[in-house]
């Protein structure tokens, strides 16, 4: 594996907690790798298992569901 390997992560974040947390990370200027792509849902319960499969099929190395 390459030394500077950064996994591509797809994230499904709940509007009320995890998404707000990601916003706060910005306000606090926490730095993290720019390889994360976020999709906001109104609840993490909205995340269909198919979305996770679809993410992996589309070339993501990991899928993160938080809420």
């Amino acid at each position, binding site marked *: 594996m390459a030394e500077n390997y950064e996994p591509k992560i*797809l994230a499904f974040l709940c*509007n009320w907690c995890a*998404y*707000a*947390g*990601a*916003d*706060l*990370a*910005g*306000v*606090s*200027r*926490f*730095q*993290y790798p*720019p*390889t994360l*792509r*976020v*999709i*906001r*849902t*109104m*609840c993490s*319960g*909205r*995340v*269909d298992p*198919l*979305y996770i499969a*679809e*993410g992996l099929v*589309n070339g*993501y190395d990991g899928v993160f569901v938080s809420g």
Partner: protein
Amino acid sequence: MDVGRHLNINIIPNTEVTSLEGEVGNFKARLESVPRFINLDNCTGCGECKSVCPVTAVNEFDCGLNVRSATYIQYAQAVPLAFTIDKDKCIGCGLCERVCLADAIDYAQEPNTAEVEVGAVIMSQGSDAFDPSKFDHYSYSQYPNVITSLEFERILSASGPYQGHLMRPLDREEPAKIAWLQCVGSRDINRCDHSYCSSVCCMYAIKEAVIAKEHASGNLSCNIFYMDMRTHGKDFEKYYDRAKDEGVNFVRSRVHSITEDPKTGNLFLEYVTEAGEIVRDEFDLVVLSVGLEAKESAIDLAKNLGIELNGHNFVATSDQNPVSTSREGVFVCGAFQGPKDIPQSVVEASAAAAAAGEILADSRYKDTKEVELVPETNVVGERPRIGVFVCSCGINIAGTVDVDEVAEYSKTLPYVEYVTNNLYTCSQDTQEIMTQIIKEQNLNRVVVASCTPKTHEPMFRDTLTNAGLNKYLFEMANIRNQCSWVHANNPDLATKKSKDLVRMAVMKVALKEPLQEIKLDVNQNALVIGGGISGMTSALNLARQGFQTHLIEKNEELGGQAKSLYKTAKGEKVGEILNSLLTDVKNEKRIEVHLKTEIEEVDGFVGNFKTKLNKGGKPLEIEHGVATIATGAEEFKPDEYSYGESPMILTSLEFDKKLMAGELKAGEMDTAVFIQCVGSREPDRPYCSRLCCSHSIESALELKELNPEMNVYILNRDIRTYGDREELYKKAREMGVMFIRYSYDEKPEVVFKDGRIVVKAEDKIIGRVLEIETDLLTLATSIIPNKNIQLAQNFKVAMDEDGFYVERHAKLGPSEFATDGVFLCGLAHYPKPIDESIAQAKAASSRAVTLLAQGTVSTNGEIASVNQNNCSGCGTCVSVCPYSAPSFLEEGRMAGKADINAALCKGCGLCVASCRSGAIGLKGFDNEQIFSMISAA
């Protein structure tokens, strides 16, 4: 946020009230504003001014553990989200004015005064944390590793001085052993003159210990030194039990000295254990659990406005009117009324609003603003014409992300017809320009690439509405909070990410359809279930705010448990409170009382309930818009301590009844014993019943008044006289009432010797078993709810395993259910004394009136809907929905299939993801929309 965006809440920051003239219904308040040197209308909160400010000042919000600039914002969630210049610290260099592209800096601002006319006033200034620096015995000022609980909160916070890493101030090392010292600045008349209990510190210390353990890298040793563990709130006792299970160590002892090891900065605590042993132990960090005290500024204002304060400088109130001050039309809520936690503060806030609502009911909607409606253009079936607005946010985005490149790239995306870049897309003038562009370019979809939809989506949606476009044809790409700010060192990849985010938003918005919000009328009648103090108070408030109210009671008369109670904690006679309520209810023309009435069936939903009742055997149907559940609770009849074997072994309510009937011959008694926690804090009922400690002490004091020679013992596990109820505990000790502690494993025993009741209990202090011969034994039994599962099912509301109803949110929605249109108060929610029941009853009505007064409810556009052709009728959606929105259709071609009630759906999508048949879609977050984002990402 809700407050900040509310059309009819005018926030006037940096302002104090200097005088209040006039009277209830017609006050004139003089306001004095101090300048913030930043123009609120122009400031976008971007923070450019802060980043160039060369001044370093102490950050008060982080309790001095951090620094800030002279141009600052107190915390990220502040409303209004605008900066302030601290003129005391500002050196006047002018840098901020030069970099502010929004032209918001105004060094010339002057203080100004204004006058507002109001009908009622609510005081909610809160409290201050006790400052331990004035007292040498806490060594707070001497030793850097002795900190207050508030400092520890900031340390644990992800947005705090150490980014949430558990570190101690001296050397930024992670502590391995922490001590919390309780009752710092509370329950202490020796030094600080605060004899009251601050109510919140036990619970927050446990919470801090549990969270610290989660943040720690190793096995953190957490030790809480306390006198009585006061976890009297709903579900608090369970949290205490959980903390014990997780290894938090509770030591019942008052630490008398703190010394420091100058080499390591570690601290030595010396204390005496319950067994009488002197212990010296070493800790890396000591947290002082500081109590609450009234704010100096609030005290001054109260005096200035002629508001009476109590002996502790909190606003004086009565148990009968817990949110009314001594000046008519002026109300109080929160910690300025007395120390309290968030749920109780929220209850009081709604109660104060309800009390003010009674006065203002006649002038409702006289001075309020309404939104002007712009006719909506029909875009259904049109090919998408997307406009992309890329925001620079000053240099917040443009400083990292190449916004021109993002804008250029956006032009290449499908269906995009118009792209522009704005300095501040959110500014007032840009909004007007956006409205023009949408119209001129015939745009039918809009993407804004800027900050977060959490703060700005509602505003941009309004802009779409103003341009005649359906507000749901909108999507945001968060290229600031989740891109430029977090990838500041990687501009190339941040620009690439921004393009990806814009592409994702464009793909999604292209698939969006206009959504409709349906307006449903709200029936203007209210139904209150339960005719106790809570139910009557709630009904009265609803009626006085102008709504016809049906009050139903299953028994033959109103009154509930209050009929058996003697006095409140403040010494007010419950009978008098009850009588005045009964008279008021009887005289109130808008209340219809239904006695001997029970609910059979409830149909409908928020705004449109149809309830079938059984009124003394006859059927009755009531249509109503809202319902309040105030079904109360009763006392537990004990199965231990020989209850029932002697006429002199009573429950607390039986004691009160005998006392009121004059049947207690206190003069002829030598001894009385009270046993606390009978049936509470046990595996069967793991909750604390909250009011029994205060009640037994009140009863003990009554006995002492009647017969000062009497020996009175209170056998307890912890004495939980929270708030100023602590005064009762203090008075009881002064009057010679003896308090003996027992533990759950070693309960007292009751035996009979020669016909006398004998209570055996071990006194931990002297380490011997006492045998107390007593004339009277009172068992402080737990409060058990009237567990009416049928009612819960009828209104589709949740009940916990103890039988108490589950509120919408433990802290922010304590008086309402997750199911819209149904409200909650009194003992049915959790055991509570009369003042708190009255406050919650008003709170429930206040919440109900916000619905009733609007006259209509609007459904959200982004909700779930069922394609009945695909539905298998399995019922998964019905069982997973927390808001009771799905149900089975009962008639028609699709009978047996699920259907979603648009008025109840919150759009969470739980049912959509759970549906085995793929029959449910979620508007605004539909599968194809999310799949399009995944493949575009």
